[in-house]
């Protein structure tokens, strides 16, 4: 890969990442349903991660199979969320009061 492709414009990637970060921060103030904000934030994060992997890590210029290796943890992690949700979240619960820690003196 060392000479197999022209270098991407890294400053352009940087600018995209910067703008996407600004959008992410702006999104949390938009007055819409929480679910929409969650979907927007996760999508934006995935786009940013893809930019980093594709250009900074040169994945776009590598063998396709290498991208499959890189994508495996994403697939497994997504699966894991659905495996874990019934485990801990079947009944929504609060932390017992005895477990809560009082704020230190001088702080609210």
């Amino acid at each position, binding site marked *: 890969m060392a000479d197999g492709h022209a270098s991407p414009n*890294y400053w352009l990637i940087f600018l995209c990442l910067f703008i996407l970060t600004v959008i992410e921060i702006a999104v949390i103030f938009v007055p819409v349903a929480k679910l929409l904000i969650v979907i927007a934030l996760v999508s934006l994060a995935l786009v940013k991660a893809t930019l*980093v992997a594709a250009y900074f890590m*040169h994945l776009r210029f590598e063998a396709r199979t*290498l991208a499959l290796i890189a994508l495996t*943890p994403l697939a497994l*992690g997504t699966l*894991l969320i659905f495996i874990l*949700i019934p485990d801990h979240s079947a009944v929504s619960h*609060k932390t017992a009061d005895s477990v*809560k820690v009082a704020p230190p003196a001088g702080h609210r």
Partner: protein
Amino acid sequence: MSQVETMHPGTEPAESPLTPESWGKLGMWIFLAGDAMGFGTLLAAYGAMRFGSADWPSPYHRLGINLTAFMTFLLICTSVTMVKGLEGVKNGKRGTAQIYLLLTIIGGAGFLGLQAYEWTNLINEGLKVFGNPWGASLFGTTFFVITGFHGLHVTGGVIYLSVMLVLVSKPTTALGTGWTYNVVEISGLYWHFVDLVWIMVFTFIYLL
């Protein structure tokens, strides 16, 4: 077929199948996939615990995002300096490679310093690993475990890149597109991965 026939039985193929220029790169990718699974597990567990909690504190109000937004920016900058450093190695410009690698290391160290500052403030406000004044005790547990695990990776990266800086600085190290380029590129893969993970951590822990 002719290649296979001429090979001695039992010998390793000379070329890595996915990354023809080096086996190390394939090794780093496989390591990173495993490492990503570690972070993926932590974040998935975090999601499930938060989803099941009725009194999860608001991260935006308790953790604050001004400082961490700047830390995100800093880490993205170091990813750019890293690729610029690698370009320096490729073009045989030792000085350029040194300056950009040094900037990357300084950025990484700066990130760690800011994280230490952030942790100190939060601990003073009452955020502990086993509890906090605001709600679900797991809020603190997941925060310290996940950001701590990432911070350890940054620490490792700063040490790793320092070794690369020493290597590139040696007058006897040949620059260009050969071995040195491969080795520095592999270290860059690790560093960009740390940046990539922070993008996820920033989103899930601070913004959501």
